[in-house]
């Protein structure tokens, strides 16, 4: 019962375009978002990431006898706010349910979740996909958003791959057990045609931005605080009935969501072409190869024996509370994009670059700190994106704040720094040397523009290049470049080149 049922081995993959010429995909996405609360869903243990094993546990999340769960008010508020942002209806009354299963990642032998009474139902999220014919919109219907708790982290010891097969035993850290999760479930997404992988990606991306804009989670996909289960099925072009779906679990990046859908379409088309059936099963995404492999089969459907949790009383948010939360929702990411595109005068391409770099929030914050939008955009999209790529971190994870970037931009505008010096200041800030002004001071990076210091360098340059000076006196002002170069060299690049040129021409009695 451990292994998937397969019939007659693996079929050939079908090239994506070929598959899409004969089959229509239907998608479904279940996304888990770990909330950014300070404490767990049903107890007061800390949720801080990266703590030593089993240091953030208590009798409740360890399921010790006699302990009772109590609901985290902020988690409920976060669930309602996300539901409202997705245009869901908020259930006026609902209960938690026990999802029973035998596995050591939950010491209770059940996970507290919501079953037939989710807190939010019937919403939608509009997403945009770039196509060769321009942007195209899709509406993704949301079936439900429900609250549940995360599980502990199991590691399998003794197996070759860290998987359960061949493992001698498992070791478990319960720090994560009980951290609040929201699960967002879409209705089946149809009529995407060959844009299916892009629609899936755009949906997760938009959902991530929405969650982030609400401040209910920091949504770090690499830490697993947003993870996706991707359901894909195929039906022959023109068919009325959907095919059998596979469910690829725990897909952890936007790119992986897109690849997983694409791979499943090619794989399932191969089976159908070969006259085999698609097995309803759980699959795992392989980051390296971009493929999926069979996990446990759902042939013996999981029997979770859900029932209302008698330890918890119903959640019944008042209409007043819901309306209060609705009125306080922030501007939606899609509205923010439209507004900044107009305010900053961006082309569609410029906006897309900003979105793809995940830089809208950073640039907006930099503009709010006083920088012109063009400068802020250039710094984040060019110099800072390059640094992020080099050090393999997300842009937002760079050790520089929007306020610091705005200060660097201001120093350039004031003439204190050239662009070249500004990059060195950014180096300093990223290296932890402090605020931009402190880095300028400590590294002695200020542009030499006061006339006494610059004047001395100019005089030296003229004295050292009498031939050039003579040419300039004779009216060949273009030759001044050579003397500016000498000044820049003498000041190690810290001179204001424009000012140096003016001084040179002035000293030699020539009109600029």
């Amino acid at each position, binding site marked *: 019962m451990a292994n998937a049922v397969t019939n007659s081995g693996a079929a050939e993959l079908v090239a994506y375009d070929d598959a899409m010429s004969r089959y229509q995909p239907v998608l479904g996405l279940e996304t888990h978002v770990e909330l950014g609360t300070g404490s767990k869903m049903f107890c*007061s243990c800390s949720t801080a990431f990266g703590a030593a094993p089993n240091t953030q546990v208590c009798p409740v999340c360890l399921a010790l006898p006699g302990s009772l769960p109590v609901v985290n008010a902020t988690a409920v508020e976060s669930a309602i706010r996300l539901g409202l942002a997705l245009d869901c209806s908020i259930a006026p009354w609902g209960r938690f349910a026990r999802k029973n299963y035998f596995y*050591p990642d939950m010491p209770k032998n059940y996970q507290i979740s919501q079953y037939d009474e989710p807190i939010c139902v019937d919403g939608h999220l509009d997403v945009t996909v770039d196509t060769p014919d321009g942007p195209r919109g899709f509406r993704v219907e949301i079936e439900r958003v429900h609250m549940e708790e995360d599980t502990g982290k199991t590691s399998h010891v003794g197996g070759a791959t860290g998987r359960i097969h061949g493992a001698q035993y498992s070791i478990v850290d319960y720090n994560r057990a009980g951290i609040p999760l929201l699960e967002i479930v879409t209705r089946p997404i149809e009529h995407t045609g060959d844009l299916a992988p892009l629609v899936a990606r755009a949906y997760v991306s938009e959902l991530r931005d929405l969650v982030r804009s609400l401040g209910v989670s920091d949504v770090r996909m690499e830490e697993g605080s947003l993870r996706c289960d991707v359901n894909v099925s195929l039906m022959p072009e023109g068919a009325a009935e959907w095919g059998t779906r596979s469910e690829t679990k725990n897909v952890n990046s936007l790119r992986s969501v897109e690849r997983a859908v694409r791979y499943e379409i090619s794989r399932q088309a191969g089976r159908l072409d070969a006259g085999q059936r698609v097995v309803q099963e759980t699959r795992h995404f392989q980051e390296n190869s971009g493929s999926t492999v069979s996990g446990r089969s759902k042939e013996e459907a999981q029997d979770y024996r859900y029932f209302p949790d008698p330890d918890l009383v119903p959640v019944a948010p008042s209409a007043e509370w819901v309306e209060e939360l609705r009125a306080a929702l922030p501007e939606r990411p899609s509205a923010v994009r439209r507004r900044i595109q107009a305010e900053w005068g961006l082309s569609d391409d410029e906006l897309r670059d900003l979105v793809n770099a995940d830089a809208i929030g950073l640039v907006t914050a930099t503009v709010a700190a006083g920088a012109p939008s063009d400068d802020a955009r250039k710094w984040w999209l060019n110099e800072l994106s390059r640094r992020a790529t080099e050090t393999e971190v997300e842009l937002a994870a760079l050790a520089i704040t929007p306020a610091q970037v705005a200060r660097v931009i201001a120093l350039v505008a004031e003439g204190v720094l050239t662009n070249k010096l500004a990059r060195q200041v950014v180096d300093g800030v990223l290296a932890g040397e402090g605020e931009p002004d402190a880095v300028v001071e400590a590294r002695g990076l200020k542009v030499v523009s006061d006339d006494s210091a610059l004047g001395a360098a100019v005089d030296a340059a003229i004295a050292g290049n009498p031939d050039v000076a003579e040419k300039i006196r004779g009216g060949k002002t273009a030759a001044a470049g050579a003397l500016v170069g000498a000044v820049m060299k003498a000041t190690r690049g810290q001179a204001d080149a424009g000012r140096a040129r003016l001084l040179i021409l002035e000293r030699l009695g020539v009109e600029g």
Partner: protein
Amino acid sequence: MSAITRDEVAHLARLSRLALREDELDQLAAQLDDIISAVAQVQEVAQGDIPPTSHALPLTNVYRPDEARPGLGPDAALAGAPAVQDQRFRVPQILGEED
């Protein structure tokens, strides 16, 4: 009228990883059936106008503020563990499931 079958007990036992003997399956099927039948009598008085209940107390919205507090230290947390390795609970491998 038997509501609980022997096969259902075997299925539940498998889900709970309980190894039951043949004679235990028969015995428990009969006992569970008695319990269910007894509880089912409630349905005779609770007609459609009485909503199903899951809780004895007429309470809703019992919340706590989102404030983190220290829990057990790892030593206390692991004191009841069947075995410990690397400050983690060490448990037998579970067959039939995959992480």
